[in-house]
């Protein structure tokens, strides 16, 4: 038994190793512990080993080739949900949906039956399959059912299945780590570098420019995007008409995490998410 902990300790700090071993034992049958611990000691993400990541009130299934939902994403999603509570909204579009965690969290809101369709898109077919699987898995907690389809953000493709071309809210967590920063020196974890899909990680201004082009195409009235660098927020501001209100949001560690914007004053309530205005 001690051998398992020892194996984990090769790769993880003491308290984390003990905690993760406890979760492995809780969530996997005993005959899989050995393999799980060896995989983890090679830095395979725990969520790919256990198969899930909790996200707000949901349990999100995770599979290799699709990015694992992050704590930081969960944090702003829950805050967004609070801001949207009781509000009237037309359709919502989620670009680069991955596991579907953002679209599904929005669909778990008690207010969501009053909203229009929630649509999630991704360039990766595996992500769309997984997002659909997650919709089924979390069915009991969803107040409305989102739909998912393959769309290429860089080609500014717009989902066709729903038949709607107007979306009140555009949300996205696009790839935002510049390729020159894909290393541990720039703060990317080895586990992320070696095991998660680079297609969901590597990107910069081009994705935000594409998102800004989609805004008029879908008649979006408001948006919130996750990001990692200030220059990405500035690129959004630059590509928006001056009439739009736009600001940035920092996460609970004080790092810049989102750019938020809206056109019409009826979305003024989103200002509670912003801690710095961009003009």
């Amino acid at each position, binding site marked *: 038994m001690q051998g398992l902990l020892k194996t984990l300790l090769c790769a993880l700090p003491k308290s984390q190793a003990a905690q*993760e071993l406890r979760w492995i034992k809780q969530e996997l049958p005993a005959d899989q512990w050995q393999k799980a611990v060896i995989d983890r000691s090679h830095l395979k*993400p*725990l969520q790919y080993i256990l198969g899930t990541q*909790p996200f707000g009130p949901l349990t999100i299934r995770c599979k290799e080739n699709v990015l694992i939902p*992050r704590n*930081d994403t*969960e944090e702003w999603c829950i805050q967004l949900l609070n801001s949207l509570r009781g509000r009237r909204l037309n359709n919502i579009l989620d670009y680069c949906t991955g596991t579907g965690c953002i679209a599904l969290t929005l669909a778990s809101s008690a207010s969501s039956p009053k909203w229009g369709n929630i649509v999630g898109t991704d360039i990766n077919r595996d992500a769309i399959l997984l997002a659909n699987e997650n919709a089924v898995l979390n069915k009991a907690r969803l107040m409305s059912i989102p739909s998912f389809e393959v769309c290429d953000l860089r080609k500014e493709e717009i989902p066709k299945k729903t038949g709607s071309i107007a979306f009140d809210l555009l949300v996205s967590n696009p790839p935002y780590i510049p390729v020159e920063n894909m290393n541990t020196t720039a703060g990317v*974890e080895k586990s992320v570098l070696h095991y998660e899909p680079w297609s969901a990680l590597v990107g910069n201004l081009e994705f935000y420019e594409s998102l800004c082009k989609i805004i008029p195409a879908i008649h979006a009235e408001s948006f919130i995007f996750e990001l990692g660098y200030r220059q990405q927020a500035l690129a959004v501001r630059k590509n928006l008409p001056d009439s739009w209100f736009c600001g940035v949001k920092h996460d609970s560690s004080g*790092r810049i995490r989102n750019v938020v914007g809206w056109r019409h004053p009826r979305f003024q309530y989103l200002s509670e998410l912003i801690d710095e205005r961009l003009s």
Partner: protein
Amino acid sequence: MPPRPKVAESEIHEKFIKGGSGNGGQKINKTNSKVQLTHIPTGMVVTSQATRSRDQNRKIAREILAMKLDEIENGSHSRAQLLLARKQMVKRRAKRKTKAKYKKLDEKKAEENTEKRKQNEPSDRIKDEDEEIIVVK
């Protein structure tokens, strides 16, 4: 039993402890989700990282904080203390019951043993006599 104690959200300052480097977002994939609550009026701090779910940890941390405050406020009449007292009482009662049960069993055994001894005594005597006879020979 008093109801589960609760703390007003307005009296709580919540913090998510991330640990490690200042980096976050897509660069880092954290497996734990530690929640720290500070009770503003008293300054009491509690944390929870019992589960992988931040949602669950937030609930657990609130339960711990409420329980601790209730214990300070109500002492031996707090829910936690009353629960503990009841648990101890149940344990004592169970112990008493087992003790009584074994006492009874022991008594029964003792009774059976004396009866056996009574039955065995005559045969013992015969044996003794045989031995005596052998010795005499």
